[in-house]
């Protein structure tokens, strides 16, 4: 299998950057997309060129570190999938595949396809936790939590923090990411004492980081590898209103 990768190259955050074409031969359909990029990098080394910087770690769809724009879509042509789960059989022989980094002001490019997503960590820092010290926990079964509530909390707790929701959103909104963490913690009894403070502080940080507002296009839930629903954003907005009144 042979394809042309058209890849964004950018030396450093302040460099202008440009798309560059690389013809890659010797690929097979059962290679993963990232393995095809590994293959290209080995070719570049042997040609005495600098390798393309791109992100990955677990390569099984759970760490959230990988993520690039492929032919205009976050994580490539399929819905609800990470880049590392994508395989070359999803492309045609001879195809030109355009690969770009996440595009969002709040995710500045570090190098080539690598972006800085530390804004997500700073949102978590503002209250994406329960303030309880190690050693202070009561017996786990002391507070019963209904299966429906636990399941719903798990649906949103599953967020892998990859940033595809931001990258695909025309407003670069981080509402899906932020709502997932808020709804996870605020729906559980353990998270109730700090619920109002949490929702206000985290949404404020989200705006301070420069993420745009949500206009409910629904683009994010299509790309989210964990298929987190945009109804969570409505729920978060509701929590913001309640927190401003009762908080």
């Amino acid at each position, binding site marked *: 299998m042979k394809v042309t990768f058209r890849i964004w190259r950018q030396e450093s955050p302040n460099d202008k950057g440009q798309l560059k074409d690389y013809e890659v031969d010797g690929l097979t359909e059962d290679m993963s997309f990232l393995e095809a990029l590994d293959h290209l990098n080995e070719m570049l080394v*042997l040609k*005495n060129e*600098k*390798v393309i910087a791109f992100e990955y770690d677990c390569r099984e769809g759970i760490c*959230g570190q990988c993520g690039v724009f492929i032919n205009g879509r976050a994580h490539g042509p399929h819905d609800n999938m990470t880049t590392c789960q994508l395989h070359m059989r999803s492309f045609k022989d001879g195809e030109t595949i355009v690969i770009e980094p996440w595009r969002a002001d709040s995710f500045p490019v*570090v190098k080539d396809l690598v972006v800085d997503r530390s804004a997500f960590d700073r949102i978590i820092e503002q209250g994406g936790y329960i303030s309880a010290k190690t050693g202070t926990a009561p*017996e786990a079964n002391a507070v019963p939590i209904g*299966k429906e509530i*636990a399941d719903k909390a798990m649906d949103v707790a*599953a967020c892998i923090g990859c940033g595809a929701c931001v990258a695909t959103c025309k407003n670069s909104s981080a509402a899906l990411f932020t709502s997932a963490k808020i709804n996870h913690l605020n729906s559980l009894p353990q998270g109730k004492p700090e619920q109002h403070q949490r929702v206000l502080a985290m949404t404020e940080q989200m705006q301070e980081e420069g993420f745009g507002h949500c206009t409910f296009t629904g683009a994010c839930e299509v790309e989210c590898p964990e298929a987190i629903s945009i109804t969570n954003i409505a729920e978060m907005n509701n929590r913001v209103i309640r927190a401003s009144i009762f908080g």
Partner: protein
Amino acid sequence: MNAKIPEGKLEDKWRNYQAKSSLINPANKKKLKVIVVGSGLSGAGAASTLAELGYEVQCFCYQDSARRAHSVAAQGGVNAAKNYQHDGDSVWRMFYDTLKGGDFRSREANVYRLAELSAPLIDHFTQQGVPFAREYGGVLVNRSFGGVQVQRTFYARGQTGQQLLLAAYSQLYKMIRAKKVTMFTRHEMLDLVVIDGKAKGIIARDLKSGELKRFAADAVVLATGGYSRVFRLSTLAIGCNGSAIWKAHKRGAYFASPSFTQIHPTALPQSSEAQSKLTLMSESLRNDGRIWVPENKDDNRKANDIPEEERDYYLERRYPSFGNLAPRDIASRAAKERIDAGHGVGRLKNAVYLDFKHAIQQFGLDTIQDRYGNLFTMYKKITGIDAYHEPMQISPAAHFSMGGLWVDYELMTTVPGLYAVGECNFSDHGANRLGANSLLQASVDGYFILPNTINNYLAKALKEEHETTDHPEFAKVEQEVQENIDRLLAVNGTKTVDHFHRELGKIMWQECAMSRNEAGLERAIEQITQIKANFWSDVKVTGHDKEMNTELEKALRLADFIELGLLMCTDALNREESCGAHFREEFQTPDGEAIRVDDVYSYVSAWEYSQDQFKHHEEALDFEFIEPTVRSYK
């Protein structure tokens, strides 16, 4: 080797230890600095808890965020002796299962403490907001895992590791906000600084700028995970590496039982040379799936075309009482035996079938979908195959390292002030780890044990001078790190880093994985020595070191893996017995079962590094409370 096991009855040891250990008053804790390398369950747990206690903590990870650490990928669950199912579980039973699962090659006192602290750990994570699976009535659910007869595994769908890690990560950020932890993401530790025999800091490389930086502290905690990427193909994240513990080893920390590495039986098979990763399929599939290979060698028919009477359900045949749920080491070895004998399936003949046909006939498609739906979807995403209609193809893959830096009961290495927690130490799993015990050990080490034991050392450190990065030793070590990088970049050879990693991986997989023998290990040592020489004379790394350079990162890690590979083979050669995951072909019964040699090898091997040589030490294992028995799963 003094493991500092406290006096008293097994169930009193930890309490006795705590009662007698030193305390430091809160005002003084502020004056003490601790470095934590790694932000997984053990690292983030240790960093946040130490910060809560009042210490100044600096935490490091190589990823872009602390939330990426590979604890995130654990699927099945975390064990705890809660006895919520009223099925006869207890701390004692969990202790015994773990010790036996490890084939009696770990310490009684450590394993007992692990079981003892498991119940409070579930309380702890529940309080932190982990959405564990629940019954309709609101109480926690349990399921079973391999090697035990009770239900003690707690889980959050197939993403238990992710949920525990995210809880630890959120607590870490809570303490970052409180300005008690300073986080350094995209920083990789490249060496340890030892002053007057004590660990006093690290040299780390900023992976964004390439700059080398010095960090000083009163104690250093390594929480850097497992080293199974030495095999190249493994279930680990691509960035997982053994460099921090290897550098610590070269600075004086003993390395314990390096050859004890677990091969997991159910991963997806390798499909090409270019493959970078083997994806794990949860052990839970073996509850309903049946494993088989064609009875005829080189049978090229499709699985569904092979009639029932020409299928060999080899686990059920060899281990009738445990069948498809035989422990990991046994199941992996049995698969290898069939594949090597020419019965392997798939394009590369390197897999066996895991078949749900009978389960679907028996329970219906809906039930199987409900139980394993997410795993079947994952299988289809990766292979393109619908496993409801044809069997999965699975294969053994390197997964976990029971070996690691030698630590005493306080989790301190042989370098005073240097601690190792989580998978990077050798402590509780012996020669084979039971499923759902790795999340447990990482968490308990980080949250409960280290924060209680480190005081004993720091109470003394308080009275000494706090070293700063101005000490000449920092400059000296930094220069050595720089020289190593310069030497690597100067080679400018003709082969890529991955080329050498593939070569190393092949040898390690062939000679030092599921089964080992004297001639093979000796050959491996020779071949790896050759790889080392070739690597340092013919590797090519482009770009320079003062920029983000992923190729250089890989090269530095591989250089350490090559040396670690040598030590693993040396250790495997030394241990002339079969135990747990370490199977020496010379020590087996006529029907292929392991022969353990307790009167000679009932010890933890601990290797000292001195000038490119490995010196062997032994920590004898005294079984005071239980009698080691022969593990049988027939």
